[in-house]
């Protein structure tokens, strides 16, 4: 199978669900288990270590809150991109996708600023249980944001030329997932006392 | 059955051995039936020309029975086994019979060290007895052990007692045993704990009540040289190994 031509296998749909959407769901499912495992470990430790609340109080809640807002709006753009794609308006979809990844960029900048402050205050990865989980969870999530942005820009480049429009929806789904993960992280890392 | 391969020297050794036999009988029976069935069918239905194969889906009532009946019998067998397993487990790991004496067992790379309360019977007092690699206990005495680890996960195992319990750093795990047979038995470490894992051997010496009392007196107070546990002597095998290692 030459890399350019799609195999027939890719074009079939015995379930009625388009292949691209199906694989996106499976990817998300496997990611859920990974984050699930990490979060579960964190929660179990957190319960058995009430003293971690003190460390948690040093996190910049306002920054976390702002980031939540940023991600939610970016998710909205993803939805709009999907609508544009459904209307076969590639360029419009591309525009919204680029807006979405801009949201991701802002999110990462805020994170970077946040972490510099934390580190200035002397809280690093190895400063104790809470901080280890804090950096690991947020870091893993950050990587997903970054990956999502990059893929999104590639998809946008295609979409602008009205190519592979079905991918717009898929990357959108993925972005919502990344968003939802943060919805879990924010209260558990910043607010929980 | 197990005794044929390993002396039983604690009160609960036999309960484990009997459970082993129970399981052996039950699953052994099934294994023979199943294997016999398989080879029987292979022979009975070996290809012979002029004998067509039968078209069987597996939904036929009279044939389904051959699966469903064993299915329920196996569940019954499982329940019997479980009843035995949980009773044995409960008596060994979940209940702590009143102790006549206590001993502290400390695992570290790569040696077992032990702490017995001296004649005063109180742990962590001047007359405590600390030994390395040798655990002295009295026969027909119920011991509680406090199991701890100084570094990695070890596992305190005395096959003759049918006793096995992992030692975790940061926790003290309590258990019990009651030797009922005078003699000297192996102590093993059964959890991978580094290059000295295979050298982490010890001996448990089960003495008569009198002999043990005498031993306690001999060694109580500021511990006697040779028995005194200094980290160095405990780490010795480690050192030599670390050097020996390429």
């Amino acid at each position: 199978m030459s890399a350019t031509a799609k195999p027939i296998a890719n074009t079939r749909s015995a379930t009625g669900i388009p292949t691209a959407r199906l694989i996106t769901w499976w990817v998300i499912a496997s990611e859920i288990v990974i984050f699930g495992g990490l979060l579960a470990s964190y929660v179990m430790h957190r319960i058995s270590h009430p003293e971690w609340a003190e460390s948690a109080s040093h996190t910049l809640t306002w920054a976390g809150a702002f980031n939540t807002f940023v991600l939610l709006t970016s998710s909205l753009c993803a939805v709009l991109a999907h609508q544009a794609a459904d209307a076969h308006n590639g360029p419009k979809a591309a525009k919204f996708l680029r807006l979405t990844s801009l949201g991701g960029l802002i999110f990462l900048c805020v994170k970077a600023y946040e972490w510099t402050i934390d580190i200035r205050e002397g809280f690093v990865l190895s400063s104790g249980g809470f901080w280890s989980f804090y950096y690991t969870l947020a870091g893993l999530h950050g990587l997903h944001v970054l990956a999502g942005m990059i893929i999104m820009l590639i998809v946008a480049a295609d979409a602008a030329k009205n190519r592979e429009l079905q991918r717009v929806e898929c990357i959108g789904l993925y972005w919502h997932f990344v968003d939802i993960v943060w919805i879990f992280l924010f209260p558990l890392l910043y607010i929980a006392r | 059955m197990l005794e044929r391969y390993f002396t039983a020297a604690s009160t609960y050794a036999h309960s484990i051995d009997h459970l082993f036999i129970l399981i052996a009988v039950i699953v052994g029976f099934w294994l023979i039936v199943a294997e016999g069935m398989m080879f029987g069918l292979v022979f009975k239905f070996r290809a012979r020309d002029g004998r067509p194969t039968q078209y069987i889906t597996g939904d036929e009532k009279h044939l389904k029975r051959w699966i469903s009946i064993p299915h329920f019998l196996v569940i019954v067998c499982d329940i019997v086994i479980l009843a035995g397993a949980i009773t044995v487990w409960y008596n060994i790991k979940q209940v702590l019979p009143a102790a006549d004496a206590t001993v502290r067992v400390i695992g570290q790379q790569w040696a077992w060290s032990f702490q017995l309360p001296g004649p005063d019977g109180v742990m962590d007092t001047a007359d405590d007895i600390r030994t390395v690699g040798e655990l002295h206990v009295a026969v027909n005495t119920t011991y509680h052990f406090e199991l701890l680890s100084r570094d990695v996960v070890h596992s305190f195992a005395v096959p003759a007692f049918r006793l096995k319990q992992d030692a975790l750093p940061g926790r003290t795990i309590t258990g019990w045993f009651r030797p009922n047979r005078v003699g000297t038995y192996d102590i093993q470490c059964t959890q991978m704990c580094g290059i000295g894992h295979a050298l982490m051997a010890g001996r448990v010496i089960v003495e008569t009540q009198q002999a043990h009392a005498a031993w306690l007196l001999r060694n109580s107070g500021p511990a006697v040289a040779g028995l005194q546990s200094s980290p160095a002597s405990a780490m010795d095998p480690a050192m030599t190994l670390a050097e020996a290692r390429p």
Partner: protein
Amino acid sequence: MSTEVQHAEPGFFRKYLWSTDHKIIAMQYLFTGMAMAMIGGYFAYVFRMQLGFPNQYVPGYGIVTPGRYNALVTMHGSIMIFWVAMPVLIAAFGNFLIPLMLGCDDMAFPRINRLSYQIFLLSVLVLLSSFLVKGGPFGGAWTSYPPLSASGAYNLTPIGATLWLLAVALEFVAFLLGGINFTVTTMNSRAPGMKMYDIPILIWMIILANVIFMASVGPLIAGAVMLLFDQTMSTGFFDPTRGGDPLLWQHLFWFFGHPEVYVVLLPAMGIVAEIIAVFSRKKIFGYKTVLYTAWAVGFLSFVVWAHHQFVAGIDPRMANIFSVTTLLISVPVTEMVFLYIATLYGGSIHLDTPMLWALAFIAEFMIGGVTGIFLGSSGTDIYLHDTYFLIAHFHYTFVPIAIIAVFAGLTYWYPKMFGRMLNETLGKIHFWGTVIPFNVIFIPLFITGIAGDQRRVYDYAQFAEQSRPALQHLRTTSTIALLVMLSFQFVFLFNFVWSLRSGKSAGANPWRSTTLEWTVPSPPPHGNFAVLPTVYRGPYEYGVPGRADDFFPQDIPD
């Protein structure tokens, strides 16, 4: 009709190393897996020699020091599970057979498929590179319990430990990608007319295995990240002195580790199902019941993990719950095995080499299975935990799976893969030369285990009771049997290579089977089907009444 664009015949590199063709990728996985099997077998040879003939020079290796012994055992275990059983059973057979058996031209995402193999290959290289670094490869057992694995000060293999962890993590990623691709392909790309219950059992099993894998590996990937940070960034996730918990790793590991054993069991069961049906010319006895039992096994496999930790310091009350679930899981497995045996009833059984392997699988696996019951009942596990009884138990499951069932599959699909038949006589010699010694290797180990031999010990000199001469005789017997078994593997290798050229040519359907892969030429051309097939019936229509042929292929209209 294949819409494949015509292009010039690609060069060797593009054709064999950079290909997206599922058949080539299957071969890449197969040969990598076989190579790793030989490495893993070589390690078994070395440390068994040390056990059989303590502290003597091992031909082809040298003197086995304690550190080296631990590393050999750890690498043997890791390699055999992650780099032999999984790539060969799931990736090699899955890649080769899924598109062929489903009647489509390739995987749904060929380039993801290629990526999966490339990441897998990388993981192999990372693992092997740990043999070159200072301190040598990791020796903390394939279970890699912290704190031992978390700190170089304890395991003395700081670099090796991290490389092992990275290699395993990469392997997981490779199989996540591959597995997702398999699952999507099977869900969406089946030939028209192939309903859910027209899918061959092997495909069902591979997909179930992938789903189980996907659902269980996540927490361990998270755990791997934590352990990596503990090793390299001095975090304390598993360090009790700093608020961490060593048991957390054990739970994360076994939550994956137990389902993993069924991840490799199910595909093996699938291979055996296909072969039993063909060579006894019978419909599988209760096709759907087999699937139900497989689902039950998959579900239950998530709630038994702590049976590996009965004496690990968990709450003793938990042990009872897990003892119950563990014995419960023996019920569906039992039923599956019995269904296979029932399939033989009323057949006309041809004992060709693949069938011999398949029957041997059932016969041997049952022994491994029933010995699992001794371990599953918490009471006896107190004594048997981490003894050679355990070692024998899981080799009586793993060897049938990763060696016997694999040989069954290889001998059965070899004609399809390479267009020529293997030599029957050599095949039968290899069969008996493998299966008989296999039992002679591991039955003595059951006894040494009952007699108290604990695992991961390079020399029992320290332990008076284990130094009994009788036990040493048993160990030596086992080692000698291994030498015999290994020497017979050369018969297989010779047969494999020789038949590539000189085997008699196979034709499309040498075994007169019903499934779709046998409707295309052997080896299948690029794009598989000249005309993409339509499916009219289930996969095991043998001896259908009122037909001249005793088999009724899936793609023939009635």
